[in-house]
């Protein structure tokens, strides 16, 4: 991850890619051998197009600031393993008939969610109609090693014994809870628009009002949520938002 125009974005800013992150070409080649004949991705390519901020979204200058919603979260919201049109942010904004901007970055923790969201609200006076926050696993955090320009996202995927110990100690001591407590409160304090939370059902929830979603199909990388799951998330969020009378 990198700083780009004041936001935290992924390092592929301004690029178009055929494969990205866990959705690798190597994995795709293996899956071609093992997946059924009618596997959707045999005949469908995915384009990952990142804007100048390193976000898988249109450029900010192209957003309709009079009618838009804002998304933030991790790779599930970025849509790794999916065509852009199959991601839940794209589908939900279509259902709501609004434009959208998606600040989600793979590997994101609560620190980047807080940073990007508060940065948006500091930079732009025209607020979104609502903000969808996909709360990530609370054990994730951003590391900065001296001498390196990029930030390194860390989480439970880390194989380093030190990191494993750090994560376990932070969990046991209640430090992660405090970190989450502070960020959650700060986001809710500063964002003077409705916030709709969403989280994967396998993770600890952040609050009682967030929409819990479960995965029942897989994206091209066989790791992230698939087309049907994203459609379900969009529909569930749409129904939830309608009850809020926004």
């Amino acid at each position, binding site marked *: 991850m990198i*700083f780009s125009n*004041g936001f*935290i974005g992924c390092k592929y800013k301004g690029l178009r890619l055929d494969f990205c992150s866990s959705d690798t070409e190597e994995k795709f080649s293996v899956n071609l051998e093992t997946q059924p004949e009618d596997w959707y991705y045999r005949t469908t390519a995915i384009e990952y197009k990142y804007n100048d901020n390193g976000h898988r979204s249109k450029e900010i200058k192209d957003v309709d600031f009079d009618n838009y919603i804002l998304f933030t979260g991790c790779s599930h919201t970025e849509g790794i393993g999916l065509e852009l049109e199959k991601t839940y942010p794209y589908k939900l904004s279509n259902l709501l008939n609004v434009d959208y901007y998606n600040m989600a970055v793979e590997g994101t923790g609560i*620190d*980047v969610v*807080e*940073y990007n969201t*508060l*940065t948006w609200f*500091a*930079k732009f006076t025209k607020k979104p109609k609502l903000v969808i926050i996909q709360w990530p696993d609370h054990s994730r*955090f*951003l*590391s*900065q*090693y*001296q001498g390196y320009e990029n*930030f*390194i996202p*860390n989480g439970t995927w880390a194989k*380093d014994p*030190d*990191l494993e*110990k*750090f994560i376990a*100690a*932070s969990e*046991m*001591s*209640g*430090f992660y*809870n*405090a*970190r*989450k*407590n*502070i960020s*959650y*409160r*700060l986001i809710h*304090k*500063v964002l003077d628009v409705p916030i709709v939370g969403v989280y994967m059902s396998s993770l*600890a929830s952040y609050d009682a009002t967030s929409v819990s979603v479960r995965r029942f199909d897989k994206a091209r990388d066989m790791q992230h949520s698939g087309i049907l799951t994203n459609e379900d998330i969009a529909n569930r969020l749409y129904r939830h938002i309608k009850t809020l009378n926004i």
Partner: protein
Amino acid sequence: MKFVNGLLGNGVSEHYNSNGHRCKEISEINFQNYILFAGDNGSLGLDKPIEETFPYLISQRVKSDYYNISVFNGGVDALRYNLISWFHNYKKPKAVIITCEFMNSLLISDKNFTCIKAADYNDDIIKDIGNIGNICGFFEGRNILTRELLKQYVICPIFQLNYKNSIQLFDKEYVTDIPYEGSQFDYKIIADLISTAMISKSQRVRP
């Protein structure tokens, strides 16, 4: 510690106002002429009467009212939370004085967010977090994100007391950095240093 009126305070004690801060009530502040202190143990000065703490002495010297959102052992998380909340809610001060001795302090909380408090550094688990957090770049990452966020929210002159051997949030180029090598309990000297820097800065910007 306790969240009161959207700010993180030190809890209930005769030292603190109703928000848990060592200063007068927010309702009594002269918002036309005030400065804001944000830090931790040193700026609370709990070993002295409030009239001998450096926020009080500085406010007398620069002839401004003041509010003190410092939290004991609050570290950068309390600093960030209180500063952003303050700037979001209240008229901006003439200046912010950041005096954080222990930037990497840790807070702990329960799962349901019903309480929040400073971590106990005698606890081996907390020691592990402190040690490994440095090695794995956690603290550096946290401080960078906080610094860049505060640059967007704290829109006023910033004075930073640079305690010897302590981690500083802002680069010297971005704030008025005030190096200090003496004891953290010499509040009069600290007050002199900071108020002199503030007066000098304000004279430089006057026509």
